[in-house]
Every structure is written in C-alpha cells, then in structure tokens.
C-alpha cells in the first residue's frame, strides 16, 4: 500500500471538501435517519415506525418486511399472512429499483461498524491478512436457506449480526454487543472488508435482488481516469470497478453491472476527475471515440493527464 495518502485527497483539492464527501454524508444521514426513526418510538414515545428491520409498520399503514427473513420462514415451513407478504413485496420492488445492496450501504447498521473497522485498518496500516473468496457469501446464503428447511426454524436469525444489532439497539442490547465486537474485530484483524464483502448472507441475498437493478453507478467519463486508484481504495467491493472503468478496450460498457456494488457512491466522491456518476444500467453504450479503443489508448489518456 502506498504510504498514508488519504484516498480522495486529490478530489478535495479539485472539488472542495463538501463535493468530495457528498454521497458519504448523504449515506450517513440515511443510516442515522433510519435508526433514528426506529429509536424515536422507544426513546421519545413518537411512534412513526414500529418494529425492527425484520418487519416494521410505519404510521400504522406501511408494512415493510425483510424478504430474506420471510424466505427463511417459508423455507422453514411457515405460511405467513398478508401483512408480512405485502411488506416483503414492497421491499423487494424498492431494492430491485434502487440496487439491492443499497440496503447494505444506506440502511444496515452493521455497515457503520465495518466501515469504522476498515477506516481503522487503513490508519493502523494492517495489511492483507486472510483471503476469503467473495463467492463465500452465496454459499452462506444457500446454507441458511437449507438450514431453515432442515431445522424448521429461522435458524440464521439466531446469530445474524444485522438483526441482532438492530433489534438490540431498539429492544435492549443484551449480549449482542459481543456480536458487534466480533464483526468489528473480524474486519479489523482477520479479513479486509471481511464480513460485508465476503461472508454476510444478507448482503448476498440483496446481491441477488440487484442482478437486474436499473439504478447503477457508471464510469461515464472513464476516458478521464488518471489511474490515481482512489476509487479502488474506498470501494467496499473493489472488484466491481475494473470491468467498467477499464473495459473500454474490450468493448465493455461503463456501467458497473456487478450486483455486489452497494451503490454507496463513495467512488463518485473521491474521483477528482468526476469519472463516476449514478445512472441507469441501460445507458451502457461504449461511446468513447470509435467505440472500441486500441489497447494502448487508455494508457495514453492517463499519460496525457
């Protein structure tokens, strides 16, 4: 790793601090806001939202169900009733539209924990430790559904850090803090972006939801890329960037199509050249000059910069 050059330093110079943190700020406000809505009831007695991330009831009209938990419930042999099913349908449609893993980066409370772990990891200069295949999460996802079917319980919910943390904050934390600590230490010492980026079956589920999501990040102005690598440094799923950013030579479009992308928008923030922006997956034509660039063209572009 190149010394302690803060990723995004260039962007701050080029665009100003606020523009270089815009999506990060909006995202943190979203995470805090969701949590605040849930906490407003138990702490202040203002019942806008009741329940937790597994199922919530907003203003006594809007049911929202975690479709992954409901799927496990179905696999376990239950036949859920109307309100839960409607809630799951609403959530599925919403996350299909905005990108499944928007749940991970804009809502999930564990993201705050793992983001802090990652920040500290960089600060302490902890290098690569254990490599976990990123596909592991899909195996975990399949295993949780198989477990639900085999045991007839929503087995994953016994240990799921996501619901445990969220439920803990709202209904009393108990020993759930130990689970938070475990995830934090796992990400800090064991594997970089370990939990959210490699293991968590909840994220894997929302990746599946995102397979054809219209809202995506696009490296629309990839020709301007100066290879500063800042986007890779901040990206929680850095493998998703390269095909889109460097795909011009191979005729690959600029849209980040990987369902692992969490649409966090941090790459948009830290790019001093404004290569990235939010866009639609359909807007994926290869437009650079003659469409297909010779292999040396990308390098030439960056040389010019």
């Amino acid at each position: 790793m190149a010394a302690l050059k803060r990723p995004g330093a260039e962007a701050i110079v080029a665009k100003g601090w606020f523009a270089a943190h815009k999506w990060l700020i909006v995202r943190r406000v979203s995470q805090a806001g969701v949590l605040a809505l849930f906490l407003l009831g138990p702490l202040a007695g203002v019942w806008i939202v009741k329940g937790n991330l597994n199922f919530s009831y907003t203003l006594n009209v809007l049911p929202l169900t975690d479709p992954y938990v409901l799927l496990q419930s179905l696999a376990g042999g239950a036949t859920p009733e109307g309100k839960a099913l409607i809630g799951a349908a609403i959530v599925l449609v919403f996350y299909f539209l905005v990108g499944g893993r928007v749940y991970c980066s804009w809502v999930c409370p564990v993201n705050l924990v793992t983001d802090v772990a990652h920040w500290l990891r960089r600060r302490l200069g902890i290098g690569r430790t254990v490599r976990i295949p990123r596909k592991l999460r899909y195996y975990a996802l399949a295993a949780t559904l198989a477990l639900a079917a085999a045991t007839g319980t929503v087995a994953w919910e016994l240990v799921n850090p996501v619901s445990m943390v969220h439920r803990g904050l709202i209904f009393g934390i108990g020993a759930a803090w130990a689970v938070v600590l475990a995830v934090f230490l796992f990400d800090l010492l064991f594997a970089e972006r370990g939990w959210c980026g490699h293991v968590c079956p909840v994220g894997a589920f929302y990746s599946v939801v995102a397979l054809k999501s219209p809202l995506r990040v696009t490296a629309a102005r990839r020709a301007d890329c100066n290879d500063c690598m800042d986007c890779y440094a901040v990206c929680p799923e850095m493998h998703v960037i390269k095909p889109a950013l460097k795909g011009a030579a191979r005729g690959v479009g600029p849209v980040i199509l990987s369902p692992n992308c969490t649409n966090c928008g941090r790459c948009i923030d830290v790019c001093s050249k404004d290569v990235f922006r939010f866009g639609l997956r359909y807007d994926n034509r290869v437009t650079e000059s003659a469409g297909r660039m010779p292999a040396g063209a990308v390098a030439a572009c960056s040389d010019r910069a």
Partner: protein
Amino acid sequence: MNDAPKTAPAPAPDSAARRQFVLDAAKMACGIGFAAGGLALYAKQSKALPPDALRPPGALAETAFQSACIRCGLCVRDCPYKTLDLAKPESNVATGTPYFNARTVPCEMCEDIPCVKACPTGALEHSLTDIRKAKMGLAVIVDQETCLNYLGMRCDVCHRVCPLIDKAITLDPEHNTRTGKHTRFIPVVHSEHCTGCGKCEKACVLEEAAIKVLPFALAKGALGKHYRLGWKEKERSGESLVPADTPHQYNLPEGYRYELGGRGLVRDEPALSTLPPAPGTAKGAR
C-alpha cells in the same frame, strides 16, 4: 491468466481454471458446512422452549412458531402491560422471539388481544379473538408440600386473582385428616378454562411459587382412549353400568373404616401401645 502457455505442453488453461474452481468451491462448501453444522445444533437446542418461558396468546405450537415468527417485536410493542420481551442472544429462549415469565409479569388477558392483532405473519394466530380461549400454558400446583391451602390454611390467593375464578381454579373442600375436624380448600386447576396467563403464579405468596404455569404438553395428562368414567356413563345411559346388587367395596386405606349412614369415613384410634408415652404417666416415668 488466460494466455496460452508458450512453452512446453501444459494442461489446457481451461482445465487448470476448472480445477481451481472446483477446489475453491469445495473449500467454501466445507467451511460453510462446518459453520452450518454448528448453527444447526444451536438451532435444535433453542427449539426447546424453557419451561419458565411462555409464548404470547395465540402462539402456534412451538415448532411451528419458530419458523413463523420473524422476530419483529410488534407484539412486544403493542402489549400495554410490558409483559412481553424479545429474547436476547444470551437468553435460553430462541434469539429475538417474544416470551414472558409469569412470575415476573403475567399476561393481563386484554379483551382486544393487541399482541395477536399486531402479528404480521400469523405466528400468533389471528383466529384467536376471545382471550378466554387462549392456551399459553397450564397452571399446576407443583408443590403440595408448601401450598398453604394444602397445609390447611385459607390462603386462596391463586384462586382469588384468577381472571376466570371458579372456572379455571376452584377450591374443592376436603376433610382435613391431620386435624380430623377441619376442611382443606384444595385449589384445583381446570385445563378446560385455564389460559395460562400466569396471574396465579405471580400472586403465589410463597418465596418460590407452589403454583406454576407450565407448557401444556408438559402439564396435562391424558386418559387412555378406552377409559370410561362410571358416573358420566351413568348420566348418559340413565343407570349405573355396575349391577346394583354388587356388594360395595370400599378399598379403604389401613386404619380407616366407613360407617354407611353414620359418621362416614372414620380413622380408627391407633392402638395405645403404638402411642408415645404420655409424660408423667407410670409408663413414662419408667
């Protein structure tokens, strides 16, 4: 990586990639399998609800409940008496599921059953509309040695706090053979009416309650299907199934006799020789 090797013939790159893929997949499957095995054991354990934990009214049978409940806590929120709680990870109730402990806070049996109404999945059955039909558990006098009414006193507290007084709990008078002249008022729970709300367990004045609400399956006995109760058969058929001229057999315990039409059940005076010697008598002085 996909470039064809330029030197000596080596295995086709495709085959190497396939090897790697299969190897990676096997590794992950092993790792996940290991974790899943552990979780399966844990899930199996937490399927057993501890006997001091009760589910909210209308809860499906425990095995069905654990797949139907999605741990949202809306029943907890809508309980006006804060009876319910969601199990924390360290508790021995399945994490995140609602339960209550009767001795701590019993169910107040709200007429409108808000907890059941709040349930989005039907883990608490919406067909339960009359709280008197709830079966959260069954109260049992678990200890006759300490129950004050069994000891011959008139505590009666469990009976008096029972929301279905004289239906779910009755006080059945019984001759006190210890004193020989008093009546014991024995609290008897009737499973047909008991909802398992736990108010009796909460109110029991003892340090450790002598009446406790237990899971139905644990608390309820069952007669053999071929059993017939003589007095019910008599009611049904209008006459006794036993021929009238059969001489009555009392089968009394040792030391008792029965005076028909007289004093009823009588305990024979124990033979003098078995009594402890009275103080001051010749025998006692010896």
